[in-house]
């Protein structure tokens, strides 16, 4: 059992997962695998309901870079927490391809990784555990200082340092 956390709140997952030969229903929000999208995009885009796509960790988002306006959600999969490709994918989706919809982390998502994930642009997580919201709060509270600028817009230490120096002048 996982709970969807979106923008810091528990949220209801309205999306039905579609993979392989699953039949595509006429109504309802769908989260489809990349092959399903590639095979059925014409049909999918004619439907009125929201569409999302799931990228496995070997599927580079470049292949959907031109399709982004079709997606309300992009879910990036972590097959194991050790597989860090999706951190780069998330960053590229936000910074380079300009995706502004929901970016969801799915698969082996560990509490300790949430702050990294938020920083590279994820805003939704499928979390296991008894009380993911509370855990999310704890994990978010771990750090208040960052060395790098990232997608989340938090100001890195280098910027804060200069702000402080110019303020004290």
């Amino acid at each position, binding site marked *: 059992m996982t709970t969807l956390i979106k923008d810091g709140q528990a949220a209801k997952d309205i999306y039905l997962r579609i993979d392989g030969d699953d039949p595509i229903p006429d109504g309802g929000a769908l989260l489809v695998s990349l092959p399903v999208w590639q095979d059925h995009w014409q049909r999918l885009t004619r439907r009125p309901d929201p569409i999302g796509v799931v990228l496995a960790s070997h599927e580079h988002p470049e292949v959907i870079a031109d399709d982004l306006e079709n997606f309300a959600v992009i879910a990036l999969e972590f097959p194991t927490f050790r597989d*860090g490709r999706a951190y*780069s994918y998330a960053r590229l989706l936000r910074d380079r391809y300009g995706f502004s919809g929901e970016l969801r982390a799915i698969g082996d998502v560990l509490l300790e*990784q949430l*702050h990294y994930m938020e920083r590279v642009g994820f805003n939704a997580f499928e979390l296991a555990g008894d009380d993911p919201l509370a855990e999310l709060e704890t994990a978010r509270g771990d750090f*208040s200082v960052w060395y790098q600028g*990232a997608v989340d817009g938090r100001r890195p230490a280098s910027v804060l340092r200069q702000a402080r120096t110019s303020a004290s002048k």
Partner: protein
Amino acid sequence: MYRYDEFDRTLVSERVAQFRRQVARRLTGELSEDQFKPLRLMNGLYLQLHAYMLRINVPYGCLSSAQLRALARIARRYDRGYGHFTTRQNIQFNWIALADAPDIMADLAAVEMNTMQSSGNCVRNVTADHYAGRAADEIEDPRVWCELLRQYSILNPEFSYLPRKFKLALTGSPHDRAAVAVHDIGLRMYRDEQGRPGFEVIVGGGQGRTPAIGKTIRQWIEPRHIILYVEAILRVYNLYGRRDNIYKARIKILVTALGIDRFRELVDAEWEQIRATGPVIDDAERARIQACFAPPDYDRAAAGDDPSPAAGISDPAYDAWLRSNVVAHKVAGYAIVNLSLKAPGRVPGDLAADKMERVADLADRFSCGELRINHRQNLSFVDVRRRDLPVLWRALSTLELATPNIGLASDIIACPGLDYCSLANARSIPIAQDLSRHFADTDKLQQVGSLTINISGCMNACGHHHVGNIGILGVDKRGAEFFQLTLGGSADENPSLGDRLGRGLPQADVPAAIERIVDAYLALRGDDETFLQTYRRVGIEPFRAVVYEPQGTTRQVA
């Protein structure tokens, strides 16, 4: 050296607090070992043969006397009174309790040290020329770039789960003392035709079971672009490095698989994208960091000191020490002094807590309160006034830290090996002890001249055996310890990997084999030729012959 400000301090103490919570959750069982292990590794805590081992970063090898005293206190209070300096400019403690680790980290934080990312598949401690900022042959002090790279890599949100560990090394000198060619990324400073300093970027070097000399991906890059260029490399590696097999996951495998030209295309394409929008290094931030590395106020009068400070001492041991342990400094009247942690029969790189404190005192008295750890597991004082050399020599001699052997045959690198390491095949330290006793005679040492002997207890190559002029690798043969020799390795600006000499030898035969190799070199060498030069001229056969078919003994029949 770099000093933490409130931001660094906050980050490190938040990290300690986070780890304290994680340890508590592990001890109550809320976290399983499988869940906890990657967390402790990212904080430098391994489980080794006897206990937990804690690896503490010494960023690019710079250590203050106050930090060394703190390490001594930790050694005494939480360990067994000693620590081990490593080839990666870290220090390791071998007898740590899990329950103590958060307290130790808090003690470290109090002296501006940490263990973050000293293990794990992330960017590790950035290493550098241990003479950075002081070497007479240096173009520019690389440490400002080291520190910028350190900050860039710590808790980097995108690159904390790379396919495998990632090691960066920098040198600001044309003469490479940081082994940059055997790192995932090596940066070597030199001047272009217009005389502008910049870095040659070398990628895909490494040791381990598939050793590789790095390849030049970029001939010259302006230093201020270095972070973004490293980011481009890291992104390409993060996306395309293999994740299916940990033995093939290092960047060197990717570079070899794609070829350097294809790899360069990918990196350059990425770099073109990010340099347009990415953050350039902020000049003010760079200036702030640079100021931390401002040299001390040197005494101009020192230039007038007697440059041959034999003053009052006529001791051949002192002369030998001056020749091998004392190095030219940028500033007239000053010297760099290497402290040898390789007295005959000692454990390479180990130092007892009491001696750490004495060394800290000497650093305060003679070298502006700072010291360096170098990748050959020795320490260096980098701001010694030449006229103080005799007094310092006497003080170091009583501490057994003045063995005149830097860069010579008994200055042996040895990894912890089977005495401590859970991955080992064989013991490295006893071999090092035997050999250093064997080469205890100063005259013989000086006669043999420049020679690096590096020992690893298994093919992970933590003891740099691939790049030792003589490399010794521990292997396991049906439960017995055997050692394979390689010859001709080098980690300097003309790097090479050693060639395998032949079948493994039992431990007892290693010193005699090394002796024969050295004697063969002495017989073969031309005027002023080092071991490596002779080896490169004559090749491996003469050495193979003396080891496996020594005259006067019966030829072994297979």
